[in-house]
């Protein structure tokens, strides 16, 4: 995974976002074992405690789980993964909605424009 950190946002939150995306797009498939904290930290160039914190938070969210001796794994719970995808796509829609309403578009106009855009994009 490529990491680029933004200024002014805690690094553990940015790490959590990165993992959410990677899990959602299947880079870390369900049931996959995650590398050791230290290896992940070295790869991202961050402090191991920060990486540990990010993973612990993801564990609280149920996206990963740990087995006492064998390490951390990506959840296999289909509901959790589906909710994750929905949350991530909702966030994209939210951002898009805000930008388009800021341009003065109404919801009906947005819906029509989106349909048209999808058709244009497909070359139809």
């Amino acid at each position: 995974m490529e990491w680029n950190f933004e200024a002014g946002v805690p690094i553990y939150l940015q790490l959590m976002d990165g993992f959410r995306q990677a899990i959602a797009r299947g880079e870390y498939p369900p049931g996959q074992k995650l590398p050791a904290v230290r290896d992940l930290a070295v790869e991202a160039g961050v402090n191991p405690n920060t990486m540990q914190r990010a993973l612990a938070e993801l564990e609280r969210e149920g996206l990963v789980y740990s087995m006492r001796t064998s390490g951390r794994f990506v959840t296999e719970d289909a509901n959790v993964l589906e909710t994750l995808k929905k949350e991530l796509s909702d966030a994209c829609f939210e951002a898009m909605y805000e930008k388009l309403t800021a341009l003065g578009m109404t919801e009906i106009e947005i819906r029509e424009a989106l349909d048209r855009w999808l058709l244009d994009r497909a070359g139809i």
Partner: protein
Amino acid sequence: MNEYGNRTLLQCENLTKCYGSTTALEHVNLALEGGRIVGLVGPNGSGKTTLIKLAQHLLTPSEGTILVGGMAPGRETKAIVSYLPDRDFLPQWMSLADVLRFYEDFYTDFRRDRAEEMLANLQIPNRTTIKKMSKGTREKVQLILTMSRDAMVYLLDEPIAGVDPAARDYILRTILTNYNPEALVLISTHLIADVEPVLDEVVFLKEGQVVLHQNADALREETGKSVDGYFREVFKC
């Protein structure tokens, strides 16, 4: 977890150091725990090197106390502290092989195999003398030697000054890969942006005084700025 985990490994109480009429450190109170990587940041002349030299017994306090692993700096503390000075410290005539033997003789906690493994990545012939190495190579070699000790405290004085960005990444990776997880790593630097992601905590020194000591991520959260951005604000000229 061993006896050092999360215990205070560097403690300053009312620590003051004067050079003649100049005060380099003024009433510093500071406690740093094991298991952390701490950035000691401040502009030139703010007292960073003075603090590190006091911890390494290269200087003695004018007032107040400094304890390393609960002990006053001296022979016993040097056995548990691995120190990287801010300038070249290896004799120029020594070859890489000489240096490895030298470290092995000097420090019981030196892990020669670890040093050799890291040095192998740099592909420097064993017979190369320190004098013949480029500045960047020399800095990497010195850091490798420092990180190859199983120390409880690592004092790294400007480990990334004067090297190119690729070497900087190499050095930071070397620190992350090799420090003992219960140890305290204190990195002094004015290149904050480069080391920021590896830090647990930051200590800001200004004119010999500690003006801030905080968790790096908490600082980013509170100020909405990078540690580097906040530093520029605090130390605006």
